């Protein structure tokens, strides 16, 4: 059964078509990664899937789908007197979820009581991101949408967040759609990859579809790609595009 069906999707922003004629499905427990160069429409696609911006074509969520969303970056005011305790509490009240039902969330995303009680503007990037993931888990979603969840983190921080997402995915049997710049993450954790450059350039399991030809088509001919076949490690390099 599909949780999500997208058919002939067009998303315009200020009269300019950003996503064009896109079709794909998401099944239960699928791990879909969306890759593509800057400006390819990845974030716009996620926003359309969430119903935050107008589009034409079809986006059909199964009635059983409960969506959790982790945005790319939140420009939190450092002086905001808000903690994740306040934010979790507010979301619980809005969704009418009892506070006891979310007791397991902070430990499962690695948030201690002290972190929960610290104003969000004072948290490190890693804890801030864990908080956002915890926030997304309120309301027991069965699908998570993550927009470059590691964009503001250093490399060890990235690894922790990727492992966390992977663990939560297994633990809660979540379907996950992740926008990522990191092809090694895509290789390790994605069951399928959608290469997006306004239109869909490829879709399928990463080992099959991420060929040099496709990546050049996606990122341009200056892209060079080296697949080191040591275990599952993949490195990507480019002259013009930064993936990290």
């Amino acid at each position, binding site marked *: 059964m599909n949780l999500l069906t997208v058919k002939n999707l067009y998303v315009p922003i200020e009269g300019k078509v950003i996503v064009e004629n896109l079709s794909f499905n998401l099944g239960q427990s699928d791990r879909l990664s969306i890759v593509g160069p800057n400006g390819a429409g990845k974030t716009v696609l996620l*926003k359309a899937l*969430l119903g*935050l911006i107008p589009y034409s074509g079809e986006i059909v969520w199964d009635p059983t789908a409960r*969506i959790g*969303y982790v*945005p790319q970056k*939140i420009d*939190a*005011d450092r*002086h*905001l*007197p*808000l*903690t994740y305790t*306040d*934010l979790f*509490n*507010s*979301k619980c*009240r*809005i*969704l009418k979820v009892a506070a006891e039902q979310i007791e397991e969330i902070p430990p499962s995303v690695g948030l201690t009581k002290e972190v929960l009680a610290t*104003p*969000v503007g004072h948290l490190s990037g890693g804890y801030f991101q864990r908080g*956002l993931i915890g*926030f997304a888990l309120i309301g027991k979603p069965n699908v998570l949408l993550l927009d470059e969840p590691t964009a503001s983190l250093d490399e060890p921080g990235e690894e922790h967040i990727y492992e966390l997402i992977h663990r939560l995915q297994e633990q809660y049997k979540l379907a996950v759609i992740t926008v990522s710049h990191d092809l090694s993450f895509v290789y390790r954790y994605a069951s399928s990859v959608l290469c997006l450059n306004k239109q869909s350039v490829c879709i399928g399991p990463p080992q099959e579809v991420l060929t040099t030809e496709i990546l050049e088509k996606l990122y341009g001919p200056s892209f060079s790609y080296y697949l080191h076949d040591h275990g599952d490690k993949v490195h990507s390099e480019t002259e013009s595009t930064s993936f990290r």
Partner: protein
Amino acid sequence: MTAPALYSIILVLLTAFAAGLVGSFALMKRMSLAGDVISHIALPGLGLALLFHFNPLFGAAATLFLGTLLIWRLQQGGTLTTDVAIGVIFTAALAIGTLVTPSEDLIEALFGGFQSLTLPWFLLGVLAVSGIITFIYAFRHKLILALFSPELAAATGINVARLDLYYLLIFSLTILLGLRFLGALLVGALIIVPAATGRQLTHTLPAFLTASSTTSVLSVAIGFLINSYYSHLTLGSVTLNLSLGPAIISVATVLFLLSLLRRKA
């Protein structure tokens, strides 16, 4: 003290409490500058009402309502940014308002003054303050999520545009309540300055809301006392005219300056 004077004092203290709550959210929404000058748009309405001899509150309410819709449209991504609107529209409102307001009423329209209230107006005022406090209480969770991230709030199912409009209307209602005492130039400060003090002194949300409201009520109470005992203060050869509005906002500003001395933990 007569009953109408007492009604007036009670209402302005209640308004101050509500202004502290509304101002806390205005500060967190980073609209302190807009908040300070939205009130200017009340002036043309106030002036026209005085010119044509109808209740100034109705005139002020009409232009405030239009101004609120305008700010809201701009926030929703119009062609002008909010700071451009503040720079042009609100100062223009002040200029036009000054032109149309009869000169004998101008000082009071700009800086307010003490006015007694009849029982029906008092009850209407109490109803309005209750509405403001109820709104903040009932919508606090939605307001919190929306100011943290409008996008995340929308993904949680909140209609952020509508929430913004409700909040701005509540903001304008607070301005309208304070207008008669503080005037079009100063009433915005009652919303913003005590909240700035509250934020300086606290680092949790409940403490922030409490501190802002308390500071606001204190500013009004002390301002009232100063005004009633020293309406003309003589210092040597200088006589200060301590009218109510400026007295209240001066007290609020002094409290803010004092709060700067205390470093947050």
